[in-house]
């Protein structure tokens, strides 16, 4: 079930909210928490009930291992063994579901290799619930927490707002909230803020991301035959689609949490305003950055073993972060690029070099767009073709605006954009992309929006309008254009 569906908004969510606060009002706190667990499982099972067992086994086993580790904290070797065993089991499950097909496809590139590639369906949210639980196991081992009671732990892992697309929750900030009695009392104020944040997220996803996705799709589907303009439109459309889609979904999760009096972490903080890659990773998918920093980069040694080792650790962290996003060489290259960007950025800082802010912003944005091309492309050659088209300077120099700018002779029909096969949005897409570039600076981050929010008539109108237009845009009547016979 997706947040942007009528099943979720009109049926599931009201039932969950009414059930939760009804039980809480009758002082049945355990039942209310149990209700959240059951309804989160139902949310998950709606997609495919078969993988519910995997989720439940994962929760049960990790909780058990957490207990074992906590009980043997005095015997460090044993605790360490349990921790390694549990983390390995989590990673093995993730590897099996996510990377088996990729591994076989890669092996088949070897001469004479013809392994049948197994068709394994990736269980929804496995990357997220694996990471949240690894963080829990490591923290128990570090002695940072005592073990939690089972129901609170189970709700923390399955809590429906974050279950399938994050943000990656940290047990320390969430589980205590399930035990705060005040959180079981319906709060009109929190609900209003939650409604507003949910509306903003829904609008980002439905009104912006879903409308520009097709512009990128057609370009990436024809990577070897696009021209410079189309390649740029495709790359930029995807850059904005991904941001508005993912940040919209994260915002919706935050809004849903607030409706239930649970504060979830902010995941995006206007990342495209960044003036450096280091800055970018503090604003993009913040909860993943924090996880990778705390549970990968620092355990690898962080910056404790000199500069060179720091760069190696950064690149290794980002490579693994890339593969976490998807099983494929394109994700690997995306991670490698960001690792290299980060290493360069740290070196740059170490050399105390300064860039004029607009130049720094442009360089950061372009570097991010180039990396997104790898992230989106189906295959590496597709990404290289699109980048080749984007930076085809011969085509750029023969283009009308540049020729005009350089006072060179221009075509006789200057205002007509040449017929573009893969520019399906036409001139509209160019105007929309200019507006989306402007939106980087105009649309405030959800953190700022939440701070500014007050229950006023104006906000009520904005929230209702965003919700109404988004809900009416969630459904589409497919058209048949009779252009051909």
């Amino acid at each position, binding site marked *: 079930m997706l947040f942007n569906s009528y099943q979720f908004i009109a049926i599931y969510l009201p039932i969950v909210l009414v059930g939760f606060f009804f039980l809480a009002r009758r002082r049945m706190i355990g039942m209310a928490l149990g209700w959240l667990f059951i309804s989160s499982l139902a949310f998950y099972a709606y997609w495919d009930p078969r993988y519910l067992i995997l989720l439940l086994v994962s929760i049960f086993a990790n909780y058990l291992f957490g207990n074992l580790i906590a009980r043997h904290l005095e015997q460090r070797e044993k605790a360490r063994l349990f921790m390694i065993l549990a983390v390995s089991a989590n990673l093995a499950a993730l590897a099996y579901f996510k990377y088996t097909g990729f591994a076989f496809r890669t092996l088949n590139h070897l001469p004479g290799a013809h392994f049948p590639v197994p068709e394994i369906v990736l269980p929804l949210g496995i990357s997220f619930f694996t990471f949240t639980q690894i963080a829990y196991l490591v923290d128990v081992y570090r002695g940072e927490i005592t073990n939690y009671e089972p129901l609170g732990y189970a709700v923390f892992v399955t809590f429906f707002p974050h279950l399938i697309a994050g943000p990656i929750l940290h047990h320390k900030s969430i589980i205590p909230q399930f035990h705060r009695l005040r959180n079981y009392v319906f709060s009109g104020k929190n609900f209003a803020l939650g409604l507003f944040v949910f509306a903003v997220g829904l609008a980002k996803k439905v009104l912006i991301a879903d409308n520009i996705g097709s512009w990128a799709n057609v370009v990436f589907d024809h990577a070897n035959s696009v021209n410079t303009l189309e390649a740029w439109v495709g790359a930029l459309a995807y850059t904005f689609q991904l941001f508005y889609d993912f940040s919209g979904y994260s915002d919706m999760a935050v809004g849903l949490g607030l409706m239930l009096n649970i504060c979830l972490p902010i995941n995006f903080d206007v990342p495209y305003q960044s003036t450096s890659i280091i800055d970018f990773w503090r604003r993009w998918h913040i909860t993943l950055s924090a996880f990778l920093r705390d549970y990968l980069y620092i355990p690898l040694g962080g910056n404790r073993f000199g500069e060179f080792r720091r760069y190696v650790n950064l690149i290794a962290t980002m490579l693994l972060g890339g593969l976490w996003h998807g099983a494929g060489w394109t994700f690997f290259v995306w991670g490698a690029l960001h690792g290299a960007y980060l290493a360069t950025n740290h070196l740059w800082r170490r050399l105390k070099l300064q860039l004029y802010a607009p130049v720094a912003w442009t360089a950061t944005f372009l570097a991010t767009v180039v990396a997104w091309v790898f992230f989106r492309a189906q295959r590496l050659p597709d990404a290289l073709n699109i980048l080749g088209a984007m930076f085809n300077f011969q085509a750029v120099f023969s283009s009308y605006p540049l020729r005009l700018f350089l006072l060179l002779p221009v075509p006789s029909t200057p205002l007509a954009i040449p017929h573009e096969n893969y520019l399906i949005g036409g001139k509209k897409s160019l105007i929309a992309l200019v507006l989306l570039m402007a939106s980087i600076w105009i649309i405030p981050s959800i953190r700022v929006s939440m701070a500014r929010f007050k229950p006023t008539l104006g906000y009520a109108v904005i929230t209702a309008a965003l919700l109404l237009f988004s809900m009416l845009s969630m*459904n589409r009547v497919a058209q048949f254009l009779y252009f*051909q016979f």
Partner: protein
Amino acid sequence: MTISPASFNFLTAGAVACGLFLAALLNVMIDPFELYMVFEKNGINAQKPELAFHGRLTKAVAIERKQPTSIVLGSSRAALGINPLLIRTNPSECVYNCGLDSATMYEARRYFEHALVNQPHLRCVVIGLDYQMFDQSKRPPEEFVESRLCRTSMTSKDLLDTLLSIDACQASLSTFASNLMHPLADQSYFNANGQRNELAYLQSPLIGRWRSSIGAERSVPAKLAYSAAAMDDLRRVVETCRARGIQLQLFVSPSHAVEWESLRANGQWDNFCKWKNELAQIFPFWDFSGYSSITTEPLSDHMKFYVDASHYRDIVGGFIIAKLFSRESAAPRDFGRHCDGTNLGAINAQIEEARRTWLESQPDMRHCIASLRLPEDAEQLFGVAGRKRVAQIMVAPGLQKLKSDTGK
């Protein structure tokens, strides 16, 4: 103005609920896709121009509602030319034209099965077969939705899409505006019996119609075989009809001679003949293709039998039905040949002979089609048309190809 959180929540939720209710009300009342049928008034919603883009949805729902006992299947040619009322045996019988624009044989089979689920006592099925329906590169369009077929009520998705969507609201507003501006014009894309509205089509410019209909052949790459899967779809329909005792009538559409020439120019004629041969192995059919006194009607601005090179008019549809059901009519004798699998060679020879005779008896036409060197030559195709209009027609790829082939 700051309000209490409770008022904020109440106002927001209330406004959203009211907005959704009003949207649904608008879409039910205007009913741009002819699904709900609660209200119809001239000047408000009687004309449904939006049906042009949603035929597959509307016809699927119409079959559920009407449960017709006799149906017409096929592409836009059958949809436009065959009046289903002509196939009913008594005035109370419910008949429906399920022809779909740019249909594939797969879609035709699925709509046949949908009709059967909704009307187990299906009596008669007439299928207008077109070579393009069997093109192996052709896929059903996005508008074709498998899940809405073989059921007796609308899917929840279709309900939500047609009641609570911006697309539906836009369609309602455009339908309303169109009705308001032209209250008496006949703009509905198809009639209540599913037949496409010929008058609405004739309102579009002649040149555009002819260009696009000849250009259609471009979608069939030269030397491409027709789809074996599509032939299997036809076989399944035939087997079901045989098993359930449903009267089945098949015919190959009578496109205009210019289209057959365009087909030849694209190198598809031999494949077309092979296709007919395989059809004949599956089930006897009436072959209206080729050159008859109907299909060689001289081209002009006001044609009696054709709206474009591909689509025949209602009157021709009447002749077809008369031939299929052996009824008396004014249909010329040279129009259509019954093909039972043993006589196709003779029929093809007759077609070649008819083509020779036609080209010989029409020196102007022959000149135009055989050489098509200059727009001035082709001008004779239309008689009254100016040079510029003819030049536009020459852009049609079929004629372009013909021109280049014959120019060698």
